[in-house]
C-alpha cells in the first residue's frame, strides 16, 4: 500500500501541485495568456479540437511507425550483414560511423527538394534518425556473442541462417530492444521535424501553424498530443520487450537477487 502511494501517488501529487500553481498564476494574471495559457484553457481547447487533432495525430503516427519500421528492418538486416560478411564490415562500417555523427535532420530540406512535401520525406527523416542507433546497437549485440557459443553451434552443423534465427538474434534481443527504445523517440523527432520543414497535416504542422498565428493555446494542445503519442509509442516498445525478452529481465533480476 505504501509502495503504491510512493510509486503513483507522489508523482501525481507533483503534477497536481504544478498545475495548481500554474492555474493560480494564470487566474491572477501573473503572466500573459499568449505566453502561458491556463491549464483549464488548454484542457477546454483540447476537448474542443479532439477530432481535428486526432486526424493530425494519425498522420504523424503513421509517419513515425513507417519510419521506425523501416529503420528496424534495415537496421537489423544491415547489422547482420556487417556482423557476418567481412567485406561488408570493411566497406561500410567506417561510413556508417561517419554518417552516425552527422546531424541527419540537416538532410530534411534536401529531401523536400527531391521528393516534395508529401508523406514520404517525413518517413525518410524519421527513418534516418532511428536507423543508426538501432543498427549500431544491434551490431554490438550480434558481435558480443562469446566465441565458444559459435564453436558450439558450428559443431552442431547449423548453417548461418539457422544460427542467426535460433541463436544470434535472440541473444542480441536485449541489445536490440534497448536500441528500439532510443529509436522510437528519435523516429518521433524525425517525423515532427519533417513536418516543420513542409507539410499540410500532422502534429508538427499544427505546431508551425500555431506559432505563425501566435495561438499559444493551440501550441500547448499540440504539445499535449505529441507527449501522449510519444509516451504511447515508447510504452508499446516496452510491452514488446516484455513479451519477447521476458527471460532476460527475469534472468537479470535473479542474478541481482543472488549478488545482494
Amino acid at each position, binding site marked *: 500500500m505504501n509502495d503504491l502511494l510512493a510509486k503513483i501517488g507522489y508523482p501525481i501529487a507533483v503534477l497536481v501541485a504544478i498545475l495548481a500553481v500554474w492555474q493560480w498564476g494564470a487566474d491572477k494574471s501573473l503572466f500573459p495568456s499568449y505566453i502561458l495559457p491556463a491549464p483549464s484553457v488548454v484542457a477546454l481547447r483540447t476537448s474542443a479540437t479532439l477530432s481535428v487533432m486526432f486526424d493530425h495525430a494519425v498522420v504523424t503516427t503513421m509517419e513515425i511507425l513507417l519510419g521506425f519500421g523501416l529503420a528496424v528492418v534495415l537496421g537489423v538486416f544491415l547489422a547482420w550483414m556487417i556482423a557476418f560478411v567481412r567485406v561488408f564490415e570493411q566497406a561500410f562500417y567506417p561510413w556508417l560511423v561517419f554518417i552516425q555523427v552527422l546531424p541527419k535532420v540537416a538532410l530534411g530540406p534536401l529531401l523536400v527538394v527531391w521528393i516534395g512535401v508529401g508523406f514520404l520525406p517525413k518517413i525518410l527523416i524519421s527513418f534516418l534518425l532511428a536507423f543508426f542507433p538501432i543498427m549500431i546497437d544491434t551490431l554490438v549485440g550480434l558481435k558480443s556473442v562469446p566465441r565458444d557459443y559459435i564453436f558450439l553451434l558450428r559443431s552442431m552443423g547449423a548453417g548461418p541462417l539457422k544460427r542467426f534465427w535460433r541463436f544470434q538474434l535472440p541473444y542480441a534481443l536485449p541489445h536490440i530492444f534497448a536500441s528500439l527504445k532510443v529509436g522510437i523517440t528519435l523516429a518521433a523527432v524525425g517525423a515532427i521535424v519533417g513536418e516543420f520543414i513542409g507539410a499540410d497535416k500532422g502534429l508538427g504542422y499544427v505546431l508551425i501553424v500555431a506559432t505563425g498565428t501566435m495561438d499559444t493555446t493551440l501550441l500547448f494542445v499540440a504539445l499535449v498530443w505529441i507527449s501522449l503519442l510519444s509516451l504511447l509509442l515508447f510504452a508499446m516498445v516496452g510491452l514488446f520487450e516484455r513479451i519477447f525478452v521476458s527471460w532476460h529481465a527475469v*534472468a537479470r533480476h535473479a542474478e541481482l537477487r543472488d549478488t545482494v
Partner: protein
Amino acid sequence: MSLTAVMQIPSRHIGLTGIAKSYGAIPAIESITLDIARGEFLSILGPSGCGKSTLLMIMAGLVQPSSGTIEVEKRRVTKPLTDIGIAFQQDLLFDWRTVLGNVMIQADMRGLDRNVARHKAERLLERVGLKGFENRRPWELSGGERQRVALCRALLHGASILLMDEPFGALDALTREHMNMHLQNLWIAERPTAVMVTHSISEAVFLSDRVIVLSPRPSRSVFELEIALPRPRTLTMRDSSEFVRFQHRLREAIDARQAVGTVLP
C-alpha cells in the same frame, strides 16, 4: 554392459599426427602425436595456457592447426566435425529456453526428429537427476545443475565423440565430485569416445582410461598413464592406495616438467 575396464579391441578412432599450432611467431603447441581408441576416456592434463583447449578445438575441426593432420574414422578432418558433442567450462545455456529446450537445441539445429529427441532428452535428464526440472529456466538452476544440462545437450544426438574443455572448472570441489559421478554414468550409458581437458589430477584419474600430460608452452605430450581401475568407479575409491598412486605419478610428471622448464630454457 561391461562394468570392468575397457576390454574391447582398441581400434583407432581419433588420430593426431604432428599437430602444431602457433599464433603469429608464438608457438602454442609444438608437436603432438596421439591415437585415441574408440570408446576410450582420455584426459589431457597440463598447466594453464599450455594449449590444451586449443588442442581440443583442433580435434573438433574448429581451429585449424598450423601443421600436422587429424584423422577421425580414418578420414582427414578439414572442417568442423559434426558427429561430436562439446561441453565447455561455461555451460553456454540459452536463457530464453527451458531446461528441456536447451537440451533440444541439439535436435533443432540438426533437424532431428523432435519426438525421438525429446524422449532421449528426458531420459538423459533423468539419468543426471534432473527429472522434474524440464520446464525450469537456466537461471533457476545451480552451477552444477546447469553443467549437467549442458552435458545432456552434448550427448543428445548420440555422437560418437564427446569433447569437454574443463567442464567442471567453474564448480566448487564438492559439486565437482558429484559431477564426476554423473559424467561417468552418462559415459557408461552412452559410451562415446571422450576427451576431457582438465586441471584436476584426481578428476582425470577418476574418469579416465588414460591420461596424457602436456608440457608448458609450447606444449608437447610428455607423459602418459593408463588408469587401470575397475568401473564403475566410486567416490570412496579416491581414497584407495591405488588411486592415490596414480595421482602421485601424474603429480610427479607435471612437477618434473615444470621444474625442468624453468631451469633449462
